[in-house]
């Protein structure tokens, strides 16, 4: 086990330095790239928090869908082949659910402010209510 601070907190420290110290001193393209850099670090922070559990859940769903085991990458390659070859379609039990859940998790990490993601989350909240 690594010592503290945790990876997500180190990334947070760098992101806050960029946002609070570096960016106010930059102009034009440099300021823009610093903003992009801060956003990239925010993705890493979210992945460090969300990724481990969500990857495990994705792998479990894939094992159940495919009836096979393997690394997350290999399972995804097998799913791609099944879809490409028409062995799995949107009519396949569980496929659409799996693709939606996996995609929503990607967006929770990559771009939680994306309008289509926020709309999907609102819809789910309404269904759960």
């Amino acid at each position: 086990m690594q010592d503290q601070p945790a990876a997500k907190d180190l990334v947070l420290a760098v992101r806050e330095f960029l946002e609070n110290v570096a960016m106010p001193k930059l102009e034009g393209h440099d300021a823009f790239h610093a903003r992009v850099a801060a956003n990239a670090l925010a993705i890493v922070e979210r992945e460090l928090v969300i990724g481990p559990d969500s990857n495990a859940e994705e792998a479990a769903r894939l094992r159940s869908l495919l009836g096979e085991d393997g690394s997350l990458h290999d399972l995804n390659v097998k799913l791609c082949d099944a879809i490409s070859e028409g062995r799995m379609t949107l009519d396949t039990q569980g496929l659409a659910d799996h693709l939606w859940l996996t995609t929503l998790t990607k967006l929770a990490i990559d771009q939680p402010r994306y309008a289509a993601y926020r709309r999907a989350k609102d819809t789910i909240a309404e269904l759960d209510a």
Partner: protein
Amino acid sequence: MSAAENNDPKHDIALALREALGRALANIDLVRNVRRLSGGASQETWAFDAVTDHHVHPLILRRAPGGHTNTKRDTAVPLATEAHLIQLAQKQGVPVPPVTLVLDETDGLGDGFIMERIEGETIARKILRDEAYAEARPRLARQCGEMLARIHDVPLDKLPDLQRSPARAEIDKYRDIYKSTNHPHPVFELAFRYLEDNLPADDRLTLVHGDFRNGNLMVGPDGVRAVLDWELAHIGDPMEDLGWICVNSWRFGEIDNPVGGFGSREDMFAGYEAAGGPSVDPERVKYWEVLGTLKWGVMCLIMVQAFSSGMDRSVERAAIGRRASETEIDLLNLLAPRHI
């Protein structure tokens, strides 16, 4: 003139522009206010003013990066061809910036052309939100339909040499690129499969603008003033243009206005038909919206390759791959809507 200004590439460009413009403008005195505009990875765009004895001409230079010639431009058409297309579209009644001059090799500026600078806004977020465009917004979708009908009506026998790229060719091109990244995207596979299973007939091939969307439309308070960036023009299915402007990535958060974030498909289709276009099959437009969404997703992956290969080490290039997931949720909304 200071020594610093003499070393400025803008100074050299200004001198070369003045020399070249002698062929197009009478009594040209000087070229001033030369400045590089942002955007455009495959070409440079410069704004400047040419002064003749009674007049200031606001102009734009579009040229190959660094002023080179014969730069590899992948799928983009040569700049002289782009200028030719703008002239053909203008004859058809499409608003475009009139071309002042096509550069030749004696000009020392590389491949490119000079066109009039139209005043207006191209930044989508401003067009979609600023009060200045409030009256224009409800008209834009219909105008886009009208313009696309005119573009698709350019006689084929008048067109310069262009790539022929119907749906089959587009799918093959983007699948090859996607496969070369060696990273699995099950949602992309689903979209490729849908596109294969629903391939439209090549029954009507026309000039296609190829990048008709927010960002390439110059808008004023009165509506669309110019259609820009013709570098991805090709011969293809005209519904490609109607589908591309509906891709969610170009709505900039205004997801309930499918046409560019400003209007309805029905308004665009009505404008298309009113301007002489054939009646629109919404399913076929949806097909091209799926293809366009997938294409943008694959393009995000290409940009990561530019980072990984060391060609462009910017954070922007590195991070854009993580925008592929935006296109995945858009594809699911198109292909498996309201599933969860």
